C-alpha cells in the first residue's frame, strides 16, 4: 500500500476522531486533572494533590449519597431482571396478544426522564396522586412516598422499574430466540417438567443475557439522577440524594468543580469495575459454552 492511500483512509475517520478527541478524550483527562485541583467558578485553580479525594472520603453527605445509590440499585436490579425475564418468557410467542403486550411493556422506555417523573409525581403524591386518591377511596391515610425518608428510595425504585422494564425484556426475548427449538423438543421427549426445562435449558442458555442485563442495569442505576433530582430533589434531608445528584449539586450548585470531578472519577471507577466484571463474566460464559 502506498502512502497516498494511507492518507485517504485517515481522511474518512478524521472528522469523527477529531470531535471525539476534543469532546471525549480531552475531557476525560481534563477531569482527572481537575480532580487534583481546587477549582471554582472563577480562576484556574490550584493543585492540591489528593486533597479532594481525602475530603470525599470524610464527607458524610457523599457517603450517604453513595449508600443511597447502592441501596436503590439493589432495589431495582434484581426485581427488574426477574420481572423482565418472566415477561419475556410469557410473551415469547408469535400471537397478536403477545405482540400488543410487548408493545405496552416497552412503551414506557421511550419516554424521557422528565415525563416519567412528571407522571409518577402525580401517581405517588399523597395529596394529588393516583395512589393517594385510591388510598383515600379505600378509607386509608395516603402514604407520603416522596416525603417519608423510609419510602422515598422505594418510590424511586418503583418509578425506575416502571420506566426501565422494556429494554431488559427485549434483550431476554432476543436471547430466547437464539435457543434452538430442538433442545426443547429433546427435553419434551425426555419428559422434563416445565421447571426442569426452565432450569436446565432456558437459564443456562440465557446466561450471557442475564449477565448482560444485570451489568447494564447496574451501571445505569449507579448513575441514577433525573428521578431523584426531579421527584424529590434528593430529599427529604438527603434521604434520596444519589451520587450523581451529589456531583451535580457540587458542580453546578456550589461550583466546586475540582471536588465534583473527584466524585465523578470515583463513580467512573465504580462503573468501570462493573463493566469489566461483565466482560469477564461473559468471557467465561463463552468459554464454558465453547467447551460443550
Amino acid at each position, binding site marked *: 500500500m502506498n502512502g497516498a492511500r494511507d492518507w485517504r483512509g485517515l481522511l474518512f*475517520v478524521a472528522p*469523527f476522531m477529531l470531535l471525539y478527541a476534543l*469532546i471525549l478524550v480531552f475531557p476525560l483527562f481534563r477531569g482527572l486533572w481537575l480532580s487534583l485541583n481546587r477549582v471554582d467558578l472563577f480562576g484556574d485553580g490550584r493543585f492540591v494533590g489528593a486533597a479532594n479525594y481525602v475530603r470525599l472520603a470524610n464527607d458524610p453527605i457523599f457517603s450517604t449519597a453513595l449508600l443511597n445509590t447502592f441501596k436503590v440499585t439493589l432495589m431495582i436490579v434484581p426485581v427488574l431482571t426477574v420481572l423482565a425475564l418472566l415477561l419475556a418468557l410469557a410473551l415469547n410467542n408469535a400471537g397478536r396478544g403477545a405482540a400488543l403486550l410487548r408493545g405496552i*411493556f416497552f412503551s414506557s422506555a421511550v419516554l424521557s426522564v*422528565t415525563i416519567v417523573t412528571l407522571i409518577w409525581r402525580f401517581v405517588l403524591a399523597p395529596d394529588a396522586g393516583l395512589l393517594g386518591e385510591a388510598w383515600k377511596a379505600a378509607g386509608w391515610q395516603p402514604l407520603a412516598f416522596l416525603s417519608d425518608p423510609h419510602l422515598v428510595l422505594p418510590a424511586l425504585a418503583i418509578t425506575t422499574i416502571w420506566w426501565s422494564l422494556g429494554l431488559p425484556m427485549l434483550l431476554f426475548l432476543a436471547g430466547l430466540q437464539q435457543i434452538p427449538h430442538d433442545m426443547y423438543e429433546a427435553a419434551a421427549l425426555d419428559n422434563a417438567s416445565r421447571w426442569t426445562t426452565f432450569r436446565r435449558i432456558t437459564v443456562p442458555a440465557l446466561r450471557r443475557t442475564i449477565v448482560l442485563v444485570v451489568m447494564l442495569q447496574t451501571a445505569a442505576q449507579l448513575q441514577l439522577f433525573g428521578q431523584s433530582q426531579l421527584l424529590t430533589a434528593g430529599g427529604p434531608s438527603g434521604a434520596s440524594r444519589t451520587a450523581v445528584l451529589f*456531583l*451535580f449539586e457540587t458542580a453546578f450548585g456550589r461550583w466546586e468543580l475540582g471536588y465534583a470531578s473527584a466524585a465523578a472519577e470515583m463513580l467512573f471507577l465504580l462503573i468501570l469495575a462493573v463493566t469489566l466484571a461483565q466482560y469477564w463474566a461473559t468471557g467465561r460464559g463463552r468459554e464454558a459454552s465453547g467447551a460443550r
Partner: protein
Amino acid sequence: MDRGRLTPVGWAALLLGALIMVAPIVWTLLLSLKHNGELVGHSGAALHGPYTLENYAAIFGNSSTLRWLLNSAIVALGTTAGVLVLASLASYGFARLEFPLRRTLFVIVLLGLAVPSQAVILPQHQLFAWLHLHNSYPGLILPGLIAPFSVFFMTTYMRGIPRELDEAAMLDGASRFTVFWKVILPLTAPAQSTLAVFTFLGSWNDYWWPLISATHSDMYTLTVGLAAAQMNYAQTSGLGYLMAQAVFASLPIFVVYIAFQKQIVRAMAGTAVR
C-alpha cells in the same frame, strides 16, 4: 409451543402488570383533560367528566412550549444527521481502508463505550464555556455526535458486507469515495435507519446535557423545559395544563416509536452484541 402457554394465574398476573404499566399513563391523560380549577385539592375529579381540551389549546397559545418543541426537534434531528454522517465515514475507514494507527484508533473508540457521561460532563461544560457554545444549537448537538456505539455498530455492519463488492467496484473504475458513496452506503440503509431511530430517541430524551448547557429558557429542550415546569408547577397555571404539556411532549416520541418499532427493537437487541 407448550412453554408459551400460560396458566390462568399467569394470565391474571400478566394483565395486572399491563394495567400497572398503563394506569399511570391513562391517569396522566385524564388529568390533562380536566379544567385546572377542578383539580385543585381534588385530583380524583379526573376520574369523571366533564373533560375539556382547553389545556391543549392553551399550549398553542403559549409560545414557550412550542419553542421547546422546536428546540428539541432541531437538536434531535441535527444530532441524528450528524451521527449518521460521521459514523458512516469513520466506519468505512475502519471497516475497509488501511491507514496508520487504524487499529489503535478503533480500540480508542471502543474504550469510549465504557466511559459514562457523568465522567466527562464537568470538563465538557468547561470546554463549551470556553468555546462560547452554551445556549446554542451547536452546543446542544455536538456532544451527541461522538457516540462510540454509532461507530462500533456501523463498522460491524459494514464488515458484514462482502469485500467482493468493493473489489468489483474498483475493477469498475470506482474511486475509494465512489465505492463508499455508490456501493457501500446504499447497502447500509437498514443499519442507517436503526441508528437514526436510536440516536433520535436518545437525543430527544436527553436530560443531563441540555440541563447544564441550556440555561436560557428559550434554549430549553422539552425535557429541560418540562423539568422546570414541574418544579414550579405550584406557581404556574395548574396540574391539568402541566399534564397536557407532558402528553404533548410525548406525542412525537410515541409517533416515532409506533412508526419505527422494528428498528427500535433491532437497535435495542443490538446492544446485546456489545
